[in-house]
């Protein structure tokens, strides 16, 4: 097994993108060094390893950086093969589905408007968010996970956002479980996996973080 300083993760504790990587590493049982970054005050290591975007997370393996969370998860899947099913399905069509939905999450999941806005704009943002979850519920159907029987790449792309739901519910005065019960069932199912429960921060901590962000924005 590679020594832990062969694998380094630069991350910010509240980042859902970083959590995707943490989940993937945990699924594969990879030991790694975790370096917490202050994204408001970026370290020289980060700037050296991700000069293009200067963003987190960055995975550094044998001194070489890999950036962009979904790309990192694919890298992890291709580099560390275990007895468990791979994170991306082996069937090319299902693999394409997994990639499509992970992309969809990247393109569409954005609920920060719920705490950045008020009144009509906020109501619109809340509705868009619920509509989005309903689309994802449709994709789930009767399946335990987004693409099929196994927890994988598409689930990993989406699940980290669930720890923000508590904040969204309080600030937006919403009840997500009531509107999208199937989706919350999926969330709970994912949370039963140690890789997920150990990688996601406490929703109360996220709520405090959001309150801080709102204060900075003058809300």
């Amino acid at each position, binding site marked *: 097994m590679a020594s832990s300083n062969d694998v380094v993760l630069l991350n910010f504790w509240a980042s859902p993108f970083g959590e995707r990587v943490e989940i993937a590493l945990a699924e594969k049982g990879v030991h790694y060094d975790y370096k917490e970054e202050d994204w408001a005050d970026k370290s020289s290591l980060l700037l050296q390893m991700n000069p*293009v975007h200067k963003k987190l997370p960055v995975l550094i*393996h044998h001194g*070489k950086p*890999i*950036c*962009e969370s979904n*790309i*990192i998860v*694919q*890298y992890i899947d*291709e*580099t560390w093969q275990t007895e468990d099913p791979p994170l991306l399905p082996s069937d*090319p*069509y299902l*693999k*394409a589905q997994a*990639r*499509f939905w992970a*992309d*969809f999450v990247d393109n569409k999941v954005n609920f920060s408007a719920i705490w950045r806005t008020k009144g009509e704009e906020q109501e619109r943002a809340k509705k868009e968010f619920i509509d989005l979850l309903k*689309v994802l519920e449709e994709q789930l159907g009767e399946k335990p996970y987004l693409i099929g029987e196994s927890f994988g790449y598409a689930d990993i792309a989406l699940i980290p956002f669930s720890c923000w739901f508590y904040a969204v519910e309080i600030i937006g005065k919403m009840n997500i479980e009531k509107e999208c019960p199937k989706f919350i069932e999926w969330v709970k199912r994912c949370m039963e996996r140690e890789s997920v429960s150990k990688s996601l921060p406490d929703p109360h901590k996220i709520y405090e973080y959001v309150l801080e962000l709102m204060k900075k924005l003058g809300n």
Partner: protein
Amino acid sequence: MAGDKVKLLGFWGSPFALRVEWALRLKGVEYEYVEEDLSNKSPMLLQYNPLYKKVPVLVHNGKPIMESLVIIEYIDETWKNRPLLPIDPFERATSRFWAKFVDDKFVPLIIKMSSSTREQKDKVAEEAREVLKTLESSLNQNKPFYGGKILGFMDIAVAWIGIWAPMLEKIIDIKLLDEEYMPLLNTWFRDVLEVLVIKECIPPLDKLLAHYKDYYDRFMATKSN
């Protein structure tokens, strides 16, 4: 594979459909091309891609795949001859990174460039040039293509800029592919677009220019109303 039914729903003026065609042709996959009228989308398109309602869509034995880069990876994994992505996971990650970089950074700037004032256009063009300059930093002077001696995933994911950028330069009257500022990038685009399989798919440039100029003019007209 014999007996495979492959259909590509596309639009002749779409760079994203074009790069899927490049992938299919490099692999020697036989396919039926279906031209979509984007102002009047077919029931077939709406059925296959209800979420985005966009082209390209690849339909393989009745099953649809959407999003051009996802489609290209699907093609690479299904038809294993002449691989497009490298074998090494790190190199694969790097190819994917640069393909995504271009889509995420350059495409929105093109859309933004239809801003109304001259000053705004010039500012956005400058940002776009910097994006291209960063892309250039990914190229290796010693390799003709990003994929090495033969075209790879990154080359076909990005080469559309070599066609669209000069066209936008004419339409919007801005500079993007500065030969002096990014010589390696210019050479790379020229080399990729010269490859026969790539070249023979490129739509007629005057038709493309007319189409996008018309689109741009109509867009600018709505903005000034």
